[in-house]
């Protein structure tokens, strides 16, 4: 992109060089050089944010699918593809909420899995109490929102988000463990199947929900004042404060949204398996974080996308499926997942020009 094409380019040269002293010309040249130095990386940043990083995320998923399809019988079958997008939906839904937190500069929530487990138990309990699935769903999501808002309030007050969410994870899982005496809550009716087992056009409802949430979350992130405030808060916290953005409110909302998405995942698990368990979604926290990172969201915030997080979730589940079908052990699969995160984060770091963010 040339300097002339960029809006707000460098100042125009004096109308007549003869009328300017040599000193003024020199000053103008220095100013232009400074402006060019500012603009060139920025245009590159525009390019890589808009095209390069999303392209890498997308190509990573495509590469796994192409390699899997070429090397592994059954990988590209309709059943396996549906299985991948169904499993990816839970990781992805939680990832969307997590992306808001990461984008805002608060790194991650380490209590997402426990919030999901809590919600699976509360939803299952309410169904068994005969509340019906709509009321059970709404009340469970309100509980999730409250759990997230409390954590967000602590973070807004200056607490470290990692420490707070670790502590919250213990507390969140402890309460239902005490209340249920660590027993499974069995849903002995088919009432929850409308949420857990129904399909539309052969695609599971979890996947449709995931797709709808990607659209909504991306719209909120890009097209709303809240979304832009989240991005700015993560990109430059001091500038955001100076601009008068309500940082505390942003923290509370991002943690609330992340908690709600974890709650949705918990409800889906309970409805699908007919069980509320404190071990539900137990191992998902790291997968969710991996999805966000492989999606190219900057760890320190300010840059990211919901669509890319969705690609990240798809990538993790697809590569896991490929390795299972090829008979690799869980140890190998965990290793590959870890390497993918390292490779992804390194690649995005290079794509960002090796900047600190």
């Amino acid at each position: 992109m040339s300097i002339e094409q960029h809006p707000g380019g460098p100042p125009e040269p004096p109308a007549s060089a003869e009328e300017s002293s040599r000193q003024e010309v020199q000053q103008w040249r220095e100013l232009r050089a400074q402006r060019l130095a500012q603009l060139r990386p920025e245009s590159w940043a525009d390019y890589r944010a808009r095209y390069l990083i999303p392209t890498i995320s997308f190509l990573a998923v495509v590469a796994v699918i192409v390699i899997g399809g070429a090397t592994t019988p059954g990988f590209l079958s309709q059943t396996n593809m549906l299985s991948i997008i169904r499993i990816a939906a839970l990781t992805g839904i939680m990832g969307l909420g997590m992306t808001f937190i990461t984008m805002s500069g608060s790194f991650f929530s380490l209590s997402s899995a426990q919030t999901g487990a809590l919600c699976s138990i509360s939803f299952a309990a309410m169904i068994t109490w005969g509340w019906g699935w709509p009321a059970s769903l709404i009340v469970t999501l309100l509980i999730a929102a409250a759990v997230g808002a409390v954590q967000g309030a602590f973070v807004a007050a200056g607490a470290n988000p990692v420490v707070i969410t670790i502590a919250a994870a213990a507390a969140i899982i402890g309460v239902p463990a005490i209340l249920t005496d660590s027993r499974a809550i069995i849903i002995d009716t088919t009432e929850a199947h409308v949420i857990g087992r129904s399909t539309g056009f052969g695609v599971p409802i979890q996947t449709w929900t995931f797709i709808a949430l990607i659209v909504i979350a991306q719209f909120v992130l890009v097209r709303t004042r809240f979304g832009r405030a989240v991005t700015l808060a993560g990109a430059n916290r001091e500038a955001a404060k100076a601009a008068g953005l309500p940082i505390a409110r942003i923290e509370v909302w991002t943690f609330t949204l992340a908690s709600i998405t974890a709650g949705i995942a918990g409800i889906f698990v309970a409805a699908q398996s007919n069980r509320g368990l404190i071990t539900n979604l137990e191992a998902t926290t790291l997968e969710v974080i991996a999805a966000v990172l492989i999606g190219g969201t900057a760890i320190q915030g300010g840059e990211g996308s919901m669509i890319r997080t969705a690609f990240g979730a798809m990538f993790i589940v697809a590569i896991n499926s490929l390795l299972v079908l090829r008979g690799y052990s869980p140890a190998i699969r965990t290793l590959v997942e870890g390497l993918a995160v390292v490779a992804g984060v390194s690649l995005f770091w290079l794509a960002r020009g090796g900047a600190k963010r």
Partner: protein
Amino acid sequence: MRRAQRTSVRRGRGLLLLAASLVVALVAVGAGCGDDEPKGADSKEIIVFSRTSSDTYQAAWQRGMVKTATDNGYTVTFFENNADQNEQNNQVSQQIGGGAEPAAFAWMPADASAGAATLKRLSETGIPVFQVNQLPPAGTEDYVVAYAGVNDVINGRTSGELIAEARDEMIADGRISASDPTRLAIIKFHPEFAASIDRLAGMRSVIGADIDAGVYEIVGEAEDAVDAATGFDAASSIMSRLQETGVDIVYAQNDASAAGVIQALIEGGFTPGDDVEVIGGNCRDDVSDLTSGLQFGTGLQGAELEGEFSMQMIINYLNNREVAAGEYEAPATADGYPDWPETISKYNFIPNPPVKGDEVDGYRLWGQSMVAWCSY
């Protein structure tokens, strides 16, 4: 004169010191000789190092331990770890360092091999140590007075018997042909989990020769299935292969994961109980899949039952301090607890009877219905 006085005083002091030393030595020797009581004999507390009760099996197991201990006048203190051997090692160090002297220690390691050194330290306290839930690995048997609990090899054997029975029924019904290999899929716990390894060994002890002879063909394996959600994910991950090859019998290592497997099979176009039979490793959570015919059968390994049995064996030992060599497998009596042996064995196992779906409603073990033992 003064010198004589000083000498006399010195002699007196010397005699006094000698007398005092003799008294101290006699007291010490006397205390040692008279200590016939084993260490911790006066205590009515049993300390248990176990995995976290956030797991429903562990929680029910603990309830069983507490029930039997309370009935016999003992209290139980649990030190739980989150499947972390290092955390458990630290807990043991704290108890030893703090001078704990309970009547007995019960040791449920997170990782038996990795915890061997800690088990040795525990045994060196002189307080009886019992291993529970997970068999002691080779070389650590001498560190424990006895083992009391589940035998995952027996559990796997039960599953192997059920697999063979399901095959026979399917052949008899004309659902599969005896001349074709029976297509078997296996949904496991984490493959490095000792229970998974032992259950597979037990299963292979029954049908391993048939697998090798081609009577069974293993058409798919998936891991990391411990509950309904992970069971569903594991089965879904190999569903395309199962659709391609077909599958006659699926063995899941517990019934919770079997529930997820059944749902994945239904969504994959199979009909459990008709074109495919599902065998669960042990009953868990609920029995609705068994009673509805979606699941062929399971092993009755109740968590609370195991906890009660382990504690009973510890208390029996504390009553007479004797251990017989060899194994004891508690009988699967229907209407009440069996007559416990006065002298426990080195290895004491709970029963693990196979139960088919149509037997569940009337099945009783140790005075309780199967539904009661298996719902937790």
